[in-house]
């Protein structure tokens, strides 16, 4: 009995401590921004307003950026999963001669990366600047994802593949009909990784597509709004005073509203893949 009481209190405390910051963010985002300065907002907004959100959605290019963000997330995830799992399948096969070498080659990229400038020059020389493909191609294969998938495939009994072969299946059939469906937990996990990464990334937009309004992503636009809200406070030090008068929405409120806008889509997707998510993570770790 005592154990249960302790257990429940602890669990409730844990829930509160993880949930509270998020509820606080939502509350502040829905509270009048001038009122927020007075502090003391907990989980219920004191002066309800949607103005903070209105401010964010005033940005001209937000509509196209949402489309681009969704497109890159969907395309990036589908193609990413497909290529990563196909590569993983190949290097999970014992009859692949260069298996070890290729694996090491992949792992190496997890420790040594090219660095920002070489990467930028590569992208530029490939002509991917101001091109939608720059969101898809560089992230097509990530070593980490490939290794997780390969470990998962290693844990599947090889006999499955053998018997399929005996029944006359070729490598593609084996992969798509046998291996891929069996990997669902791992695939779900990796999909979520890729999707979250794609959805949240803004720096590549800034580097490669910042000058092209048709290709900017939601996170990039939000970043812009946030940072200009922030910097207007410091404008005065640097002289251009006319920015100050525009500052009626405080950066605090903007930041909170932005956090909500940016996380909600992920929040909606997460419950559907959650059961795979936990399974997939542990499955990759321990081989049985």
């Amino acid at each position, binding site marked *: 009995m005592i154990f249960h009481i302790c257990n429940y209190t602890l669990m409730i405390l844990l829930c509160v401590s993880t949930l509270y910051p998020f509820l606080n963010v939502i509350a502040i985002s829905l509270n009048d921004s001038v009122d927020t300065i007075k502090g003391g907002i907990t989980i219920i907004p004191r002066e309800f307003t949607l103005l903070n959100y209105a401010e964010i959605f*005033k940005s001209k290019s937000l509509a196209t950026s949402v489309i681009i963000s969704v497109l890159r997330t969907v395309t990036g995830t589908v193609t990413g999963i497909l290529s990563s799992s196909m590569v993983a399948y190949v290097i999970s096969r014992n009859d692949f001669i260069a298996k070890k070498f290729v694996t090491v080659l992949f792992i190496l990229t997890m420790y040594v990366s090219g660095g920002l400038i070489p990467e930028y020059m590569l992208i530029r020389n490939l002509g991917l600047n101001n091109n939608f493909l720059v969101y898809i191609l560089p992230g097509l294969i990530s070593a980490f994802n490939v290794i997780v998938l390969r470990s998962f495939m290693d844990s599947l009994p090889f006999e499955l593949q053998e018997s399929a072969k005996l029944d006359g299946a070729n490598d593609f059939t084996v992969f798509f009909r046998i291996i891929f469906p069996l990997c669902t937990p791992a695939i779900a996990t990796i999909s979520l990784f890729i999707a979250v990464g794609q959805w949240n990334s803004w720096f590549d937009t800034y580097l490669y597509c910042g000058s092209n309004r048709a290709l900017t992503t939601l996170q990039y636009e939000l970043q812009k709004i946030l940072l200009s809200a922030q910097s207007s406070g410091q404008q005065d030090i640097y002289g251009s005073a006319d920015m100050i008068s525009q500052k009626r929405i405080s950066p605090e409120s903007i930041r909170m509203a932005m956090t909500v806008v940016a996380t909600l889509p992920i929040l909606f997707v997460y419950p559907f893949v959650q059961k795979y998510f936990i399974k997939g993570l542990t499955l990759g770790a321990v081989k049985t």
Partner: protein
Amino acid sequence: MKKNPFVIISILLVIALIAGCAPIQAPQSPSTPSSQGSAPAQTDVQTDDLKPITFKMYSVETDAYPDSDFSSPVAKEIQKATGVTLEIENAVSSDAGLQKLSLMAASGDYPDFVYGKGDLNILKNVDAILKLDDLIEQYGSNIKKFYGDDIKRLRWSLDDPSIYYIGGKELGQENMEPNAGFQLQLGAVKELGYPRLRTLEDFENAIKTYYANHPTLYDQKAIPFSLLADDWRFMITVSNPANFATGNSDDGEWYIDLKTLDCVRHLTREPVKEYFRWLNHMNDIGLLDPESFVQKYDQYKAKIASGRVIALADARWEIDEPVTALKKDGKYEAVYGYFPITLDESVKFADFQSTGYLGGWGLAITKNCKDPVRAIKFFDWMCTEEAQILTHWGVKDLHYTIENGKRVLKQEVKDMRNSDPAWQQKTGIKKYCYPFPTYGNAVKDSTGQYFEAFDTLDAIAERQLPIENEVLAAYGVKYWKELYPQSDEFPVKPHGAAWLVNMDDPEWIAADDRILKIGYQMIPAIVMGKPSEFDAKWEEYQKAMKDAGLDWVTEQFEKVLKERTKLWQ
């Protein structure tokens, strides 16, 4: 066996490295600066000058509401007059801006114009930006007229005294309101019968009396005097006021002798020590908020917004948000008045001391620019009176009208400015001032009117609360500015502003930071400690700074500052 793949990979990597390096040098050869080379093709036909041309520009300044397709009414007028279309890309943050500049330098991928603030040297180091002297000489008569003698302040360095950029900060800018000072609630000023507020002693007495009469304000415990020391804000609210109260204008952490240009860290000066002795005394008699050195910025803002903090020593922009909240709640008596309070009567508060033109930053034309001659002609046009009126006031009849020979802004433009954060994007007004060549608010045009349309004393008068007017009238003035010593009482600072000096030696930056952080740690202890221990602790602080390399830091800084000032003379 096991080593093999690694050997191969290392070889591959080395090859890749060598191959990767090669293209860096390649882009340097094409498109040499065409300042002289284009002379024979010169035609004096105007139509050639108006041929549509698009210039790409990159700015490290952030902008949430860019006029990105150059479609605002002002942009259209600029296009009509010059044929130029600007495609401006802004940075998303200062870090990202710096990265982008480095990438440009590494890849040779430059837009036509770059505004790089203090980091333009990244492009200069790879010879990516054009020398503008000859171009200005040939095509820039308006540019020369615009800058006059201040054009010297655009020069790069003593070793390379050419001009590589123009524009940047406003030329002829004067503050219309005090930015620094000591703040006292208007309610207090009024109740105490508009006392003389000139020295720290006056200030202390005012706080003391008002606090004694009002232990609570707006149903909460009153706080007589609060400071903020949240990370870098320490410099704004703890360190700067000490500098100001001892008669120095804003030179960051430095005190600069205007005659000899000798630099010292202001926190080592005797008068500054006296200021901190006063803070220590304030703490001793219970007038200093005990949370001064531990509170975070949002807690500080919340306190001010509640209306219970009687006095402050802060910069205007830092308390802007909570003061807006006070006004919104109708707590007008808790809004602050600004007073030029100094250590004693002999010291003048130098907030309005002029820095002269701050020419350290500007727009550069890169060597990838399609047509540098057109570019300089464009900037030349931007320097004309016509262009300056257009960029400051907008389009005639659309944004302003002329009544009795005077420009008058239309009411809808004023309203829009107060209600729509995207007003610059929609009208284009003020969008093409900074960082292009632009006049500040103290410059008049040929008809004797100010170029500035918004940041004027009239606009401030409109903004002032009735209680502010009442208090100001009691002191016999109309604006807060008039309580302060005026700019003509001080010499123009020959070095501009010390915080604009760029130090790029990482070792220096690290040492400077170390010295700063010592202050973050030790000053709170000094202020909150017993008065009897003050001198000993202050000594300890001085010694700690010395041990951290203060002399070397000062020496280096002084060298750079002196060089720059020499360049500007």
